[in-house]
């Protein structure tokens, strides 16, 4: 799993590639919380188009990101969900909780 950050205007776009599971979800969590809490970005956009699998610990990291964004008054946005990540959010009844867009253009225009 690789995660890298791009700054576009007042947003941070985080590009993730590989799979998110128990072996690396703490890293996803740390990166999300750093962007949302420490840096005063107004929006964190998570690009999941390169992610084919997210387990429940990865989902937990996303939920922590969502909570942190609510606390800090910033936005936390997802785009590019492949089948399995979309399904796991759906099964966990969390899909509707997140702002989800198809692609980067839509996410950035939101």
């Amino acid at each position: 799993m690789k995660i890298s950050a791009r700054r576009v205007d007042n947003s941070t776009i985080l590009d993730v590639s590989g799979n998110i599971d128990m072996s690396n979800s703490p890293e996803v969590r740390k990166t999300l919380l750093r962007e949302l809490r420490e840096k005063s970005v107004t929006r964190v956009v998570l690009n999941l188009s390169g992610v084919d699998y997210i387990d429940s610990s990865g989902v937990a990291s996303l939920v922590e990101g969502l909570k942190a964004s609510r606390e800090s008054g910033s936005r936390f946005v997802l785009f590019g969900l492949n089948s399995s990540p979309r399904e796991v959010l759906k099964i966990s009844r969390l899909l509707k909780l997140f702002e989800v867009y198809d692609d980067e253009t839509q996410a950035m225009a939101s």
Partner: protein
Amino acid sequence: MSQIAAKQPGGLKKPSKLGRAFLLKLELRSHPTLLCVIRGALEPLMEMLEFSPEQNRAIIRAVDEAVSNIMRHAYHGRLDQPIEVYCNRLQRRTNGETEQGVEILLFDCGPAVDTTKLIARPLEEIRPGGLGLHIIRGSMDSVEYKRAGHLNRLRLIKFARSSHGECGPTGEKPT
């Protein structure tokens, strides 16, 4: 594990009986970086067993969550403990048609699972964690925890035509 030693006296395992053929066994340590190896092996195996891509993803999710739980709860994060994954092919006849299925057995040597703790939390609470059991049960036809000698055994079963684990592109999955 004695599981193996007991089953392989002569060093040769023959498929025991029809309708439940041994397919694959994986043996690994309780290191989270090995989760991707299990997923990598199961994906083509389940495709071979004619599960749909959607069912395949559901099975992989269930096994991955179950092994993660063993690593965290049975072994408390220790990285060098043994885990075994057995895959057997199942067949059943329903309405005159033969249905393909899979039985996946997970073994660990941790202390006996306290089954009163095996509770999937209500999904209404929005908080991180506590989703694993929910995912496992929602993905498989049958989920059974059992103590077998000094081992914990988790038995997961799914048939290709089951109604579980599929959540289409639009509909929310019912509980």
